[in-house]
C-alpha cells in the first residue's frame, strides 16, 4: 500500500520517546543511587510500587501532580527500606536489591488485584489526569517539519524526565553536595575523614533516586492507560535501566542519549515494516528481518555496549570505586 512517508517517520520518532522515557527515569534514579556507592538491583520492583500507588492515588485525587508526588514518595519509601537494610544493617546490596524486586512486584499485584476485585479506577474517567497526560507542544520547536511532532510534542512527564536528567548532571558535576556525593561513592572512608556524613548522604540520595524511579513507574501506568492485567506495567524496563546505567557511564546526560539509542532499536520492532514499506529502496531490508531478531536487537546492542565500555580504560569510567561495598565505620 502507499504509505504517508512523513507520518511514518514522525510516528517512529514519537514512539521512540513515548515508550522509552520510563527507562530514563529508571536510569537517572539508579545513577544517583549508585553514585552514593550503593548498587540497587530493585529498580523493577520500585518502579512497580511507584506505578501502582501513584496511579491509584492520582486517580482518586484526580490530579496528575498528586500522582507524581505519591509515586515519588512510594519509590522513596522503598529506597528507605533499602537504605535501612544495606546502610544501617549492612545487608548484602545485591541480595537486598533482588529481594526488593520480588517485594515490589508482589505489592503491585496484591494492591492491584485487590482493588480490581472491588472497583478499579478507569483512567478515562478522570479528566484532570487525561488532560495532564495529554501532549503539550513546545511553541516554535514543534513546528519543525518531520522532527517537530516526533520530538517536541509530548506529555509533561517526558519533559520532566529530561529536566531531571539534566538537573542531575549539573548537580553531580557543578555543585558541592554533588561533589560530596561522588566522594562518598568513590571512597567513603576518605569522605568520612573530611567530615562528610556518609550515612546521611547515602540515605538521602538512595531515597531520592528511588523516588525518581517511582515516577518512571507511574509514567508506565499512565502510558498503559491504567489498564490493569495479569502482566506488570513495568514489563522488564527496570532491568534494562540497570544496564543503561553502565551504557551511560554513570552520567545522567549520557543517560538521555542511551535511552534514545536503546529506544531506537526497541521501536524498530514496531515500526520496521512500516519504514520498509514507506522507503522500499533504502529501508526495504527492514521488512525482511524476522520479529525474533527485532526482539533481541536492543539486548544485543546492550551487550555490545557493555563489552565496549568494559574495554574502555579505567580512567574515563564513571564507575564509583566503592560501588556495592557496604561502608562500616568501625572497620576504617
Amino acid at each position, binding site marked *: *500500500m502507499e*504509505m*504517508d512517508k512523513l*507520518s*511514518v517517520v514522525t*510516528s517512529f520518532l514519537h*514512539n521512540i520517546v513515548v*515508550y522509552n522515557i520510563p527507562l530514563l527515569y529508571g536510569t537517572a534514579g539508579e545513577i544517583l543511587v549508585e553514585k552514593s556507592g550503593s548498587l540497587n538491583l530493585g529498580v523493577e520492583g520500585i518502579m512497580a510500587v511507584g506505578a501502582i500507588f501513584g496511579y491509584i492515588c492520582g486517580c482518586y485525587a484526580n490530579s496528575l501532580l498528586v500522582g507524581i508526588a505519591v509515586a515519588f514518595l512510594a519509590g522513596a519509601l522503598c529506597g528507605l527500606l533499602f537504605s535501612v537494610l544495606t546502610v544501617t544493617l549492612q545487608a548484602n546490596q545485591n541480595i537486598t536489591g533482588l529481594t526488593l524486586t520480588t517485594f515490589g512486584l508482589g505489592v503491585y*499485584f496484591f494492591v*492491584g*488485584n485487590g482493588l*480490581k*476485585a472491588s472497583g*478499579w479506577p*478507569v483512567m478515562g474517567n478522570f479528566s484532570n489526569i487525561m488532560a495532564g497526560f495529554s501532549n503539550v507542544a513546545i511553541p516554535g520547536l514543534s513546528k519543525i517539519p518531520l522532527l517537530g511532532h516526533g520530538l517536541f510534542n509530548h506529555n509533561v512527564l517526558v519533559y520532566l524526565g529530561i529536566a531531571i536528567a539534566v538537573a542531575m548532571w549539573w548537580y553531580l558535576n557543578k555543585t558541592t553536595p554533588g561533589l560530596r556525593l561522588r566522594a562518598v561513592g568513590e571512597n567513603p572512608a576518605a569522605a568520612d575523614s573530611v567530615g562528610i556524613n556518609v550515612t546521611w548522604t547515602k540515605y538521602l540520595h538512595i531515597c531520592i533516586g528511588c523516588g525518581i524511579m517511582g515516577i518512571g513507574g507511574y509514567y508506565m501506568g499512565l*502510558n*498503559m*492507560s491504567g*489498564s*490493569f*492485567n*495479569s*502482566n506488570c*506495567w513495568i*514489563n522488564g524496563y527496570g532491568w534494562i535501566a540497570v544496564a543503561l546505567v553502565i551504557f551511560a557511564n554513570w552520567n545522567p546526560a549520557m543517560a538521555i542519549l542511551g535511552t534514545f539509542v536503546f529506544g531506537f532499536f526497541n*521501536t524498530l*520492532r*514496531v*515500526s520496521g*515494516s*512500516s519504514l520498509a*514499506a*514507506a522507503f522500499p529502496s533504502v529501508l526495504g531490508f527492514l*521488512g525482511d528481518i*524476522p*520479529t*525474533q531478531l527485532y*526482539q533481541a536487537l536492543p539486548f544485543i546492542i546492550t551487550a555490545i555496549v557493555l563489552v565496549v565500555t568494559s574495554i574502555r580504560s579505567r580512567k574515563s569510567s564513571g564507575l564509583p570505586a566503592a560501588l556495592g561495598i557496604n561502608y562500616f565505620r568501625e572497620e576504617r
Partner: protein
Amino acid sequence: MKKILALVMAMVLVLGLVACGETGAAGSNEEGLSAQTLKVGAIYINSKNDTAGYTFAHHSGITAAMKELGMDTEKQLFIVDEVPEKKDDVLAAVDTLVGNGVNIIFGISFGYIDAMEEAAAEYPNVIFSHGTGYKSNETNFNNYFGRAYQARYLAGIAAGLKSLELGNNNVGYVAAHTTDYAETASGINGFALGVQAANPNAKIYVKNLNNWADEVNEKAYAEELINSYNCGVISQHCDSAQPQIAAQTAGVFGCGYNSDMTPDAPKAHLTAAIWNWNVYYRTAMEAAIKAGTADKFVATMGTSAYYGGLKEGFVDVSPLSENCAENTDKAIKAVKELIISGEWDVFTGVKLEIAADGTVTQKDAALESNGFQHKDGDFKVPMENVEVVAAGGASVEDGVITGTMNYLVAGVEEV
C-alpha cells in the same frame, strides 16, 4: 543385630507405604461419584488471583461450572497455580493434586502436554483433561479446545460492515503469533473471511508480536497499524485490551478477544470473540460423575478431543455495542444460524456474501491462501498451490484447523 533390626523396620515402612498407597487409590473410586463428592483439581499457568487474562478466564469457567452443578468451590476445588511449562513442575503439581484426592485434573496450558500424558499413565484412577493440546488416550486422558474461528468470523462481519461504513478498507490485527501456530492462523483466517464476506475489498494487515503476553507492544502495534497503515478497525489475538484502548484514543474502532472489551473502550469496541469455558468444564465434570471411574471418562465424553463451537455455546461473540454499523446484528444472527445448523462452516469452498442490508447469500468460491506458508521456522515459504479448498469443496479438516494450518488466506498481509 542392629542391622537386622534396621532392615526389618525399613521393610515394615516400605510395606506400610505400599499398603497406604493401595487403600488411597482404591478409596477414591469404589463409591460412586456425585456432584457432592467429585473433587476437581486445576493446574494454572498464572495466578488464580488474576483479575484478567488467560488463567482468569479458565478459573472463572471452572468455578462457574461448579456453581452450576451445585458444588462447593471452597472444599471441592484444589488448585496449583503459577506452574511453568516444565515437565517436572507439572508432575509435582499433579502429585500434589492426587495427594488431595482429586478425581479430575484440568491442565490449562499447551506446554503441559507431555507431563499430562505421563501422569495419565501413572495415575489411571484420575482423569486428566488438557486444554489446547492434541494428545489423549482411550480411557482417562482427553484434550479440549474450541472453534474460536467461528466466533472470529462473526466478529469479522462486524468489522467488515464497519469498514464499509467508514469507507476505509484497511483493517488491522494485532496477533500474538501468526502462521507458526494453527490456533492463531485459524483465528486470523476466520476473522479475515468474515471481514471479506461483508467487504470484499478489505485488506487485513497483521502484526506479529511473537509473544503471548506483551502489553506494551500490544498497544504500540495497534497504534502503528492505525497511524502508518491507516487502519479503521483493529482486531486482536492477545489478552489485554490495549489495542482497543489505542483504537479509542485514535478515534477508530476495534474487535476484542477473550472477554467483552466494551467497558475498556466504550467508544471504539464493536464486539469480541469470546470463550465460555464453563460450557466445557461443566460437560467434563458431568461426564466424570456419570462415568464413575476414570477409565470410562473418554467413552462417556464420546471423544478424546472435545472441540466445541458456536453450536455448543463454547465460543460466541459478546453483545454488539452501539458502535456497530447498521444491520450488523441481523447479518451475524443469520450466519450464526447457518453455522449452528451445520449447513455451512467457515473454511469451506462456499463463501458468504453479506449485503449492506444484512442479507446473506452463499456462493461457491475456492478458499485461497495468500501464497505463503510457515515451514521449518521460515514464515515466507511460497506455496505451490494457493487453492486450499476448491470451489464448492468440503471444509478443511478439524485436525488441520487445530494442528497444521500454517498459511493465511488471500487478502491478509503480514507486516
